């Protein structure tokens, strides 16, 4: 563990920015998200979970894959600098790790060579992820339901604890270690620092609501797929895409060509299973015709299909969907509803 004095933070970010495009939480017009920063002053240090998720740093809302005209196809030029992300909470750094299973499979799961997405990999593989511990989790935080920890740092290259007057940093990957060895302005942390970090971690864990029990959720979801419970759970959902678009792990996308006069571009755009057109077939048939069928898909994907494919849930407990949902659909209540339906069935 190393220690960076807060008074040295501006210099730290300045030197980081010399080698990286640095993304960090920035608040504008009352809403926060990860943006490229010029200096440490741009960072909103009061942010716990940003309104917009950091997935857009590596998987933007819309991304031009290539451009074309009558002469041929051209790749879009990439920024020269690799990306560093500062201030990722555990739910978000884990979110990136989960997305990397989908888009960059080689790095995490060498046996899964189904697909590697070059647009993701060219950004994420060269990135440096600074996780930041949550000292004060909120009531909507539930990473502990999913095996997360406010001081866990899952998916970080360097895990950072804000200890008041200093940041305490711990490398978690080879990339992180290489960075820490090279970085200036860092001192070895003392035993007192380590103790302080442990105290903050304990306090944060105590601040969290007790975790809900998720054992058997995958099997229950599969078992109740055709049950009326979905009508009940989905009754208030209006099928907008707010949940999917603020989610750090929802990654379904659409591909569109935008062209005119012999030239154009191919674009990848966020999509959402909540939208009716998401599964609309060319014949006009829609296998997920009703609101509740689309609602169900989001939870099946998160807690069943993704578990089948990758061995983990595709939810990190950040709570953004709970905050953004205009009708207060709470993912925790949906999960509880599915699990307690088992009880009703057993009676």
């Amino acid at each position, binding site marked *: 563990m190393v220690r960076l004095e807060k008074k040295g933070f501006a210099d730290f970010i300045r030197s980081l920015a010399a080698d990286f495009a640095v993304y960090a939480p920035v608040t504008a*017009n*009352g*809403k926060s998200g990860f943006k490229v920063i010029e200096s440490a002053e741009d960072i909103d240090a*009061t942010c716990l979970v940003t*309104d*917009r998720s950091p997935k857009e740093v590596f998987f933007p*809302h*819309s991304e031009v894959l290539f451009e074309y005209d009558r002469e041929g196809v051209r790749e879009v030029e990439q920024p020269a600098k690799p990306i560093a992300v500062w201030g990722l909470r555990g739910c978000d750094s884990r979110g990136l790790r989960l997305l990397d299973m989908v888009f960059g499979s080689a790095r995490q799961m060498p046996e899964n060579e189904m697909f590697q997405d070059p647009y993701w990999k060219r950004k994420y593989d060269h990135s440096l992820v600074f996780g930041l511990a949550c000292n*004060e989790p*909120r*009531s*909507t935080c539930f990473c502990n339901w999913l095996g997360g920890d406010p001081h866990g740092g899952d998916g970080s290259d360097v895990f950072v604890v804000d200890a008041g007057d200093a940041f305490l940093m711990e490398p978690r990957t080879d990339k992180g270690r290489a960075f820490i060895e090279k970085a200036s302005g860092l001192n070895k942390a003392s035993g007192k620092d380590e103790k302080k970090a442990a105290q903050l971690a304990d306090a944060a864990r105590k601040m969290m609501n007790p975790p809900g029990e998720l054992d058997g959720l995958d099997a229950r979801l599969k078992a109740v797929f055709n049950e009326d419970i979905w009508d009940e759970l989905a*009754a*208030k959902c*209006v*099928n*907008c*895409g*707010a949940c*999917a*678009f*603020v989610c750090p792990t929802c990654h379904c996308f*659409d591909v*569109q060509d*935008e062209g005119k006069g012999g030239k154009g571009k191919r*674009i990848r*755009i966020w999509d*959402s299973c909540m*939208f*009716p*057109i998401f599964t*609309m077939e060319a014949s006009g048939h829609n296998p997920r015709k*009703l*609101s509740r069928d689309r609602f169900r898909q989001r939870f099946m994907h998160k807690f069943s299909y993704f578990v089948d494919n990758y061995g983990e849930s595709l939810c990190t407990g950040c709570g953004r969907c*709970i*905050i*953004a949902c*205009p*009708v*207060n*659909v*709470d993912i*925790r*209540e949906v999960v509880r509803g599915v699990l307690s339906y088992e009880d009703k069935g057993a009676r």
Partner: protein
Amino acid sequence: MVNELREKVRKLLADGDVELVIGWEKGSRALAATPAFIESPEDADRLIFDATCGNNPAVYFTKDARRLAKSGRKVGIVVKGCDARSLSLYLAERQAKRENIVIIGVPCRGVLDRNKVADAAGGREVLEYSEEDGKITVRGKDLDLTLDAEDVLSNSCLTCVYPDAREYDIFIGEARDRQDGKDQNAALDEFEKLSPGERWEKMTEVYSRCIRCYACRNVCPSCYCNECFVDQNDPQWVGKTPEITDTMIFHIIRNLHVAGRCVECGACERACPMGLELLLLNRKAAREVEERFGYVTGMDSGEKPAMADFREDEKQDFIMG
């Protein structure tokens, strides 16, 4: 008030007058009540009504290609003034049958703009909410704040002159008619003073922050096309990226499509996860419709909607020059 509401709803369900009542119940977050679907008399006690009840429940009649409206089920619905106007619009547009709806009006003192409350709380999370006599109190860790409700109400409520239902079957308390004396359109007056270029600039700035999640459209009772034009892909009318031209086409066409149909409930603004000022253009359209056609949306379910009616004496300067 809430006890009377629960009592009335319990009786409606127990007597078999309705099969379902849509209202609000306490949500999982302090500032967000959540739509409630009550089907048995004993569940009536879940109902609440206060300034956290910001959704417009009329939307559930037309959700899912008007599944509920077409079902023929008898439904009770708890409504604020604006929500009742949406029902009147549905009746005028023949999207619901009057005999299938029991309208239960509740006295509305305005609903919260959660972004305004969050600003006032300065980043501290609100864990408890209570209200009394035009004051609201929010509490949380290191937070105990009492605010004038007026300071944190939705913009739509600050300019609302019809707080209570005008058409109803049951009213909890006494329904108030038009409430004048509010500065009805201050923000709109300011907007109208701007030059066309300045207006364009302002709306460009607002819409540039849109993430195209369509929460505004989907919570809007007036937006009930079976297939929205942005979801059509043969032909595709509009690009899907958050690029500003396409985003503006979405918002402006939606705005024009709800002109003379928007009840200014503000559900769109409250739903927006990016906190965009979405009601402004809708209010502008509503003012145009009122000035030209003398029509205010949702006042009378027997009146033909402005865009479905023609009168010889109506103002035609937009055609004649």
